[in-house]
């Protein structure tokens, strides 16, 4: 889960990372009670890059300008998202801008400290000057100093920048984060540091043990039309494509393989849905049945849908549960639009599943290629 800038800065503040005085604006009229002296920066709180270029960041000198600017920003979609909140922040004169981040390196299975002397909006320059340090054992501040030196920092900045990195690392660890980024970290002419913009990505699997982060989600605007997918597709979220075959499978790899095979055989998927793997510790037949039914309901909403292809594979009662869920779904759907089903199941209790589906005149396949051929012929 990505946090918004003002949420990230609240966490920075609590951790002792310097941030500017700021105020959260839920409505343009809130600006009449602004406690920060002008000039002020108003920033759209949407989670995406390029806010400035899109017009989502404006400098204002007085209340009248501020209210007008706020109204404009609230009504300005940035890549399809409207902000629910603006951040009003004091202006800051930076002498230099640095980039700092702590991320997890998935393949090294270690945290990584990143730093660049070229912070700011020019991403290519930032990356060109990027330095990294792997935290291969228990963290200690020397890792941060190692990065500061690699970045080419000198004098007092070695200690002050390392101290910020140390706090970023603490936050990263305490809150189970995937990413903590400060860009830019401003350095004033007096050598003071200030986090001007920040980015935090919380780990979705760990949100269950950080209720404080989970509640922040409510304020994050949803994209209206999106190509990016929700993270946890396993929670029966449907992904819509251009074709006319709905695909429902269990497991990511199996879902991808089924999509690949349908494409290869000349079919066009309308949507796909991954019921999730078998390895959730609380998986039970009831949960599975419920997920299949919810998934099918979602799938039926697609207008292009001509046929549904179900492909599930696994252990223990999966065949019967899948067949039962499909049967229940069809009973609920009775009377509304009927879309043909092609079901491919392998596993225990195949025969019971076949009897159940035969009673509904649904063909049941053992062989995946045959099931796909049948689905494609029904879609034409």
């Amino acid at each position, binding site marked *: 889960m990505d946090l918004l800038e003002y949420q990230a800065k609240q966490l920075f503040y609590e951790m002792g990372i310097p941030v500017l005085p700021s105020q959260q604006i839920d409505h343009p009229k809130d600006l009449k009670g602004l406690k920060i002296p002008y000039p002020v920066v108003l920033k759209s709180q949407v989670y995406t890059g390029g806010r400035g270029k899109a017009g989502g960041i404006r400098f204002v000198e007085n209340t009248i300008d501020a209210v007008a600017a706020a109204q404009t920003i609230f009504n300005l979609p940035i890549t399809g998202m409207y902000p629910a909140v603006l951040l009003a922040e004091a202006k800051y004169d930076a002498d230099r801008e640095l980039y700092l981040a702590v991320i997890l390196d998935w393949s090294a299975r270690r945290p990584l400290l990143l730093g660049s002397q070229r912070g700011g909006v020019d991403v290519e320059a930032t990356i060109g000057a990027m330095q990294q340090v792997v935290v291969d054992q228990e963290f200690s501040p020397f890792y941060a100093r190692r990065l500061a030196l690699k970045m080419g920092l000198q004098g007092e900045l070695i200690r002050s920048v390392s101290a910020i990195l140390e706090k970023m690392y603490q936050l990263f660890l305490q809150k189970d984060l995937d990413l903590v980024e400060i860009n830019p970290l401003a350095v004033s002419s007096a050598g003071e540091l200030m986090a001007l913009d920040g980015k935090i990505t919380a780990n979705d699997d760990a949100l269950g043990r950080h209720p404080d982060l989970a509640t922040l989600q409510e304020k994050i605007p949803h994209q209206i039309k999106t190509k990016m997918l929700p993270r946890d597709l396993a929670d029966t979220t449907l992904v819509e494509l251009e074709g006319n075959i709905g695909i429902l499978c269990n497991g*990511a790899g199996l*879902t991808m393989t089924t999509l690949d095979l349908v494409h290869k055989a000349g079919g066009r998927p309308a949507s796909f849905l991954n019921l999730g793997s078998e390895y959730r510790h609380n998986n039970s037949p009831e949960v599975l049945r419920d997920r299949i039914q919810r998934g099918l309901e979602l799938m039926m909403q697609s207008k292009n849908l001509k046929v549904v292809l179900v492909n599930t594979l696994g252990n223990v009662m999966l065949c019967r549960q899948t067949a039962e869920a499909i049967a229940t779904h069809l009973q609920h759907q009775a009377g509304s639009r009927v879309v043909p089903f092609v079901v491919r199941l392998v596993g225990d209790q195949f025969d019971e599943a076949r009897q159940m589906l035969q009673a509904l005149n649904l063909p049941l396949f053992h062989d995946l290629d045959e099931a796909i051929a049948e689905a494609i012929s029904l879609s034409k």
Partner: protein
Amino acid sequence: MVQGITEPLGSIYAPLMQVYGGQILAGISPGHGGQHLEGIPVFDLVEQALLSVGAVDTSVIFVPPYQVLDAALEAIAAGIRQLVLVTEGVPPMDMMRLCRVAEASETLVVGPNCPGIIVPGQILLGTHPAEFYTPGTVGLVSRCGTLTYEVARELSQAGFGQSIALGIGSDRIIGSTFQQWLQILDEDEQTEAIVLVGKIGSDSEEVAARYIIEAIDKPVVAYIAGRTLPQSQYIGHAGAVVSSQVAGLRDEIGTAESKISALRQAKVPIAECLSQLPDLLKQVLKGSPKTSAKS
């Protein structure tokens, strides 16, 4: 040993593993000590179980995701050096800590979010559906779950039994890697060829391809899922996410193209679809598959 034996998954799979032929000496479930599950004695604590049943080779862990780290540390502290973590959704920070401890203690950790290991005809350490597997000489190592079953089924039907089959886990941070298992299979006398099953996202297949060039002598064939998926899309658990967290830093990695080209460089034949895998195996084994059915 099965940790979390009274959890929903544990109570389903422990008896299946027992039936398959592995000897389950003990189950662990705090508060359930003294009970029995299908004849398996249940203990409150790992060290207590070991005092009663003697040494244990492997622990298969089914506890809820936020308890996996603790269960694994408990097993390692008691001297168990092979762990299979089945549970999905273990936070990466916990895995990071576990990997450090596992490396220091030379513990083999499979998973998390995985179906575990099966030696067909002999032992099941996880959730593989037994009916898809037959004994033989193909080593199967996969980063997927249910797709692993599908591949095993395809191989078994074509007469290619398996020496060892396993899923290394679909999460972003996993214990043992493709490289470790390629090495184990390369050294395993039963194994004549290796099937590697990957999917889009992460750089696991790319790293594995480099390792194959350096260190693997036995023939390897591969299948990559997700070739027709648009690059911006991903499916299911976070493992399939292309991890370009810092814009532009590593976005060339993780696509199907990147994996296929890395594997081609390692001279690994790649199946376009699952049904091609047996043909490729025949080719790399020079048309004479020894499908020695030992069962």
